[in-house]
């Protein structure tokens, strides 16, 4: 097993993992604030087509990413207004958002199918990015670095800043937070907008780097995996990173096994594994005493202050 082999395999793992890690990171923040947004898939697709289309029209990938983030925010705001200001059921609204996102992205995308995106090179100079060894660190797309940065930033934010503490308080006990004087609804709006922006960026990862083109429903269900990942991670950023890479390694291993002629278990078993493990993790963390690593207590419950 040469270094090149390992590095190439690692590149595959990183490529598969990054969009899921991004989407899950955004959703983590949303859920920490007490809201469950099932519309990730829809927001990702809107971000994917927006990023692609804008980058294409303006010949500039950075504007594309920015547009994708904004599109994600805009889409998430539909959800936010319904759920926060009108008190609709979060599950139903999230599902409707997914349907909306699939439809909207397909509609915008009808004029963009069959086009290839601009190449989007890694942000480091070629000498490093193409170097046989150092490319493992410097040869990735900007999305990869952003994803790493983001998960650490979120972890730090949640555990070490006052704002993060307030966010968690809102998610654990919204009435108390409200009585202390924190603007619960505003905080949740911000969290949902953040989740939307990140989901949009995650979608753009697909259409701009992984497979530089647009095709309907190209995220192929990754949004749902991101949801599972947040559960799997016990709502902790560090575990999210580990969990995402665990998923990525599993998926990659499965491909290598198949290509080499081994089928130890049917492939469906591997595909089901992450979800089964997520359920097991849920059982484990919920049965322990203490609140660390459990779901935010207000997750999914609407907040309507009295008077």
């Amino acid at each position, binding site marked *: 097993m040469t270094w090149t082999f390992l590095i190439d395999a690692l590149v595959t793992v990183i490529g598969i993992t990054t969009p899921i890690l991004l989407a899950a990171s955004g959703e983590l923040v949303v859920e920490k604030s007490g809201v469950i947004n099932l519309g990730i898939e829809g927001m990702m697709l809107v971000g994917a087509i927006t990023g692609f289309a804008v980058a294409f029209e303006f010949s500039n990938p950075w504007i594309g990413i920015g547009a994708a983030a904004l599109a994600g925010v805009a889409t998430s705001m*539909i959800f936010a207004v319904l759920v926060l200001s009108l*008190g609709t059921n979060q599950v139903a609204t999230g599902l409707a958002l997914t*349907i909306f996102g699939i439809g909207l992205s*397909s509609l915008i995308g009808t004029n963009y199918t069959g086009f290839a995106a601009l190449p989007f090179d890694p942000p480091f100079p070629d000498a490093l990015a193409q170097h046989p060894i150092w490319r493992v660190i410097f040869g990735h797309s900007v999305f990869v670095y952003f994803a790493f940065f983001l998960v650490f930033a979120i972890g730090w934010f949640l555990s070490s800043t006052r704002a993060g503490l307030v966010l968690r308080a809102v998610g654990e006990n919204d009435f108390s937070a409200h009585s202390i004087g924190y603007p619960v609804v505003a905080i949740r709006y911000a969290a949902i907008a953040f989740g939307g922006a990140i989901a949009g960026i995650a979608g753009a990862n697909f259409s701009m780097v992984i497979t530089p083109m647009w095709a*309907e429903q190209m995220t192929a269900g990754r949004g749902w995996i991101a*949801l599972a990942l947040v*559960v799997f991670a016990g709502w902790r950023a560090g575990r999210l990173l580990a969990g995402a890479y665990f998923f990525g390694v599993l998926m990659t291993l499965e491909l290598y096994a198949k290509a080499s002629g081994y089928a130890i278990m049917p492939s*469906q078993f591997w595909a089901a594994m992450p979800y089964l493990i997520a359920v097991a993790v849920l059982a484990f963390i919920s049965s322990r005493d203490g609140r660390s690593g459990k779901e935010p207590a207000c997750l*999914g419950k609407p907040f*309507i202050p009295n008077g």
Partner: protein
Amino acid sequence: MRLVLEKRLEQSQLMLIMTPILSVVGVMIIGVILFDALGFDGFDAVWQLFITPVIDSYKWRDVATKAAPLILIGLGLSIGNRAKIWNIGAEGQYIVGALAAAGIAVLTKDLTGFWIIPLMLLGGMAGGAAYAAVPAGLKTRYGVSEVLSSLMLVYVSLQLLSYLITGPWKDPNGMNFPQTAQLTDAQLLPRELGDTGLPPGLLFALVAMIIFAVIVDRTVFGFSIRAIGEAPQAARFGGFKSNQIVWSALMISGAMAGLAGTLEVMQLTRLNLGFPSGYGFTAIIVSLLGRSHPIGVFIAGIVLAVTYVGGQVAQTVVHVPNATAGLFQALILFAILASDIFVRYKMKIKTNKTEVQS
């Protein structure tokens, strides 16, 4: 000055009925404008989407076929909704129920007899209930949220489906395509009930609606469900055990989902990879739109089925792209979900000095 929502003392009955109607009308108007802007004949498009499925008697069959599984699953979910138990994974139970029925079909493929169909139906219900027992057990034993556990299990069920139909249950005469053998005549319900052109699923849905209406309104069990949902402390004081409610609610919705799955297999006459149609998820919306009441769920199921069928009609007649129809459905859902608020809450404008009612 700000807008606040104030809970009404009782639900506005007027709004209960008006809001869905107003939402649909509102979205229809938006739709005419939207489609015109996109270059279609807006009025025609909206007509095909909403009106044709309702007034064209040929389309009633299609609406009924689509509505039946939504209503069945929705009825099951509405029990849980009232107890604030959210079975998001009904899709998984739908699939496992269908698999159970398909398994019985595989075992009985060379047999005949009147007992086969009832066995498949019961088997499907049992399969769905058993699959729902997992989140129920996890909740009662470990306190795991049923929202998350049942959702994860949906993906597990998809893999199980894939495994079984590409492996042990693959049709030996199917050219190696991932699908089960066709159900035999002894295993299929008739396509339509007599001359009506309506599918048997609709009959099941009607009967189920009546049964559920009786249970919810007139039995102690139904009362306990509502009590646990609305006043859990008082309910427990009154002797209703919440664990039992969790088990019952989840297993009932699982059984209904499994029943819907079984009926759908009989419609399709076999299982293939395209089987998971998302009814389990759409039924969540149906049960909420129907305000978790059996008659409401029935109507909501029909309404949603109309949008599906209307979307197909719009595609073939007006050549509206499939994506636009889907977008439209989402808008209707948003509108109905949003307007729901006015049933339970009143909008008030509050100033520091006086209160002005809107």
